[in-house]
């Protein structure tokens, strides 16, 4: 079959089973957009390319399937950088196709030329420049394979306009052969046994589980392992939901805004079993005081994650899911051996529960999140921006299933929440998708309101408007003598209700506590996209908190 490069590109996407493409056209990618016109693939036209990347990312995190982005050269491509970096940090499978000026013009500072392969090299798992149309099918096959195997990540394909016009005999390869890429090394059973021995000896073990377990689809195996052994589980912000937080063995989230009992458990553990997690500084606190008594077992698909920031005692390189299965076979019920340990944890849980002031007249963010959680029965797919609302969502929603908490954990990208909700909703059309957003974060990508409304994507935005860059304000209050430099938004915020309504959404505002539950209900009951504008307390802080540089058990909390 003879096809132009552009037609071949779209054919590749079809053959990969791509359902949605997110993007925005421009000169150098016009031939490809012309081919989109003839395709059954559903194209979602965004208002800004960053939104397209977050949508593809949200789609990917919600489903496990590779998200796809299509944009033009130069500014279109550079607008994807934040989204690529976000996906890269959190190991999200994505293929981003960028237009490029014609091959003969590359390097001449042509109109809308940018060295996109150069710019995106540090924020992609791999990238390609298609110099010959004959290479295109192989490159696309490899791109999809690389994006969603091993430790997943974004792959960028830079597609010069002249190549998109060249004609080729199209044949899509069935196989790939990349001699420098071995994404799935065989699991070293000796290491697994060594780890299992260590865990069997342990009196105070803790499982510390991250996004890698979500990516591996290991929720079931984790639950089985914990039900069998009784080992307590804490998760990172990216691991939320992979283990049900309502389970008695759940310690909830650890780290800077984790629970006391998760952090104390880690600090007092004698064996810490890290599973698909990477010892981020927001998790470990002061690194040389992290889990000081523990031997560390680390299971990760990426060898480079192992012993990167923390010295590991037993490493297991491999996919989390089969490793947990092996653990389940090798390990026995540890509850009898852990009596004291579990009792100690119960004491911590009783003494330091997560809490907020229930009696205050003000609307607290925690209260709103708590109510949404109850009204959605902890079953919604949740996305967030970055800031206090993200941490409160992590603390108060109580996630019960994998791929239900979607947020930018690694890069901490404000503006991620709303577009990622759009992508997540497209991937999970029959589920309720709720975006908890801050007024600061929301304004970074709220141009996509019209995208949600035009395509009738029924996401529910719970806008927690505290009139501040709340997390920044909190740090300034605690560490910068209340000098609120550039963190006040209130006086300059727009009328969010009008903006939502003008964009075609159903919107409501709540300003009193007794309006909150009816407001949530109204928004959830609405068939289309809807926004609930909540005027929440302006100066509430997220606690518990481990200030940066503190050991994980040096926690500050509200009085």
């Amino acid at each position, binding site marked *: 079959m003879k096809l132009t490069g552009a037609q071949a590109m779209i054919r590749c996407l079809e053959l990969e089973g791509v359902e949605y493409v997110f993007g925005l056209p421009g000169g150098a990618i016009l031939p490809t957009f012309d081919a989109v016109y003839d395709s059954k693939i559903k194209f979602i036209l965004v208002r800004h390319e960053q939104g397209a990347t977050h949508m593809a990312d949200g789609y990917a995190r919600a489903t496990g399937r*590779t998200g796809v982005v299509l944009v033009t050269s130069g500014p279109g491509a550079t607008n994807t950088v934040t989204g690529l970096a976000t996906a890269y940090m959190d190991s999200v499978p994505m293929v981003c196709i960028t237009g490029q000026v014609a091959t003969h013009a590359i390097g001449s500072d042509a109109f809308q030329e940018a060295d996109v392969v150069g710019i995106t090299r540090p924020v992609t798992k791999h990238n390609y420049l298609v110099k010959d149309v004959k290479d295109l099918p192989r490159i696309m096959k490899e791109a999809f394979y690389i994006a*969603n195997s091993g430790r997943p990540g974004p792959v960028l394909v830079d597609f010069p306009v002249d190549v998109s016009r060249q004609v080729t005999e199209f044949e899509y390869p069935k196989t790939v052969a990349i001699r420098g890429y071995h994404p799935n090394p*065989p699991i070293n059973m000796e290491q697994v046994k060594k780890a299992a021995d260590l865990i069997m000896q342990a009196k105070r073990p803790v499982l510390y589980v991250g996004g890698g377990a979500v990516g591996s689809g290991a929720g079931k195996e984790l639950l089985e392992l914990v039900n069998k052994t009784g080992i307590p589980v804490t998760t990172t912000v990216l691991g939320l939901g992979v283990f049900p937080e309502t389970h008695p063995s759940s310690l909830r989230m650890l780290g800077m805004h984790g629970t006391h009992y998760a952090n104390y458990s880690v600090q007092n553990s004698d064996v810490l079993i890290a599973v698909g997690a990477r010892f981020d500084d927001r998790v470990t606190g002061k690194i040389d005081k992290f889990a000081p008594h523990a031997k560390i077992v680390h299971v990760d698909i990426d060898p480079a994650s192992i012993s990167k920031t923390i010295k590991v005692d037993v490493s297991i390189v491999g996919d989390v899911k089969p490793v947990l299965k092996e653990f389940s076979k090798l390990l026995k019920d540890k509850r009898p051996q852990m009596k004291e340990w579990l009792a100690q944890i119960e004491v911590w849980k009783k003494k330091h529960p997560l809490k907020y002031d229930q009696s205050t007249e003000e609307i607290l963010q925690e209260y709103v999140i708590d109510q949404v959680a109850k009204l959605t029965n902890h079953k919604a797919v949740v996305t967030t921006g970055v800031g206090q609302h993200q941490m409160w969502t992590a603390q108060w929603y109580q996630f019960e299933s994998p791929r239900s908490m979607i947020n930018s954990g690694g890069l901490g990208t404000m503006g991620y929440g709303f577009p990622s909700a759009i992508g997540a909703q497209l991937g999970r059309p029959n589920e309720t998708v709720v975006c908890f957003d801050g007024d600061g974060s929301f304004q970074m990508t709220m141009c996509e309101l019209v995208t949600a409304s035009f395509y009738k994507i029924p996401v529910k935005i719970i806008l927690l408007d505290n009139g501040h860059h709340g997390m920044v304000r909190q740090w300034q209050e605690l560490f910068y003598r209340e000098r609120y430099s550039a963190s006040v938004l209130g006086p300059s915020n727009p009328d969010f209700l009008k903006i939502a309504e003008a964009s075609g959404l159903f919107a409501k505002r709540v300003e009193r506590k007794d309006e909150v539950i009816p407001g949530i209900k109204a928004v959830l009951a609405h068939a289309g996209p809807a926004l609930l504008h909540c005027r929440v307390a302006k100066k509430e802080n997220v606690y518990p908190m481990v200030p940066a540089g503190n050991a994980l058990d040096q926690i500050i909390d509200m009085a």
Partner: protein
Amino acid sequence: MKHTVAVLVENSFGVLARVAGLFSARGFNIDSLAVGETHDPQISRMTIVAHGNDRVLEQIMKQLAKLIDVICVEDLKPEDMMERELVLVKVQANAATRNDIMQIVNTFRAKIVDVSQDTLTIEVTGGESKVDAMLELLQPFKLLEVVRTGTVAISRNSVLSVPAAEIVEPKRSAAAATQAAAPKKTKSKTKEISK
């Protein structure tokens, strides 16, 4: 500690930038980097000399191995390695000093490759210590230009071999009702660490 790392890479667009970018992005210092095609024109070989503690080296090796274009990585052991560097040195010389310089050149089994009225250009090949020693002796005569290729190194007893590419048939990773691609199990580019 100094480490000499041999890396086989795909001889393709942008590989050098990827490797160099990795070092700068992760704050690793390169002492020297030499690269050239191997007997297989599709493969280039890099010799990277870098220093840092074992932890740093371990990360360097793993991060290199992670690059898709990197075929294999090996930390060459000092006791099992031959290393050479070629250096061209232009040194000031006149009738009075020429003989002294020639003597140094002979001692180091170096070569004079160009002579002019007031300069000598010397070619020397060897390991780092030899080259450094010679440069030190030439210093008093006034070095005008020094150009070094960077170290290339090869192991005495083992061969850095290219693993055959595994042929995998990935699932359609973007399609509904499929999970992530499940490739066949393949050998890792780096060794597992255990205690």
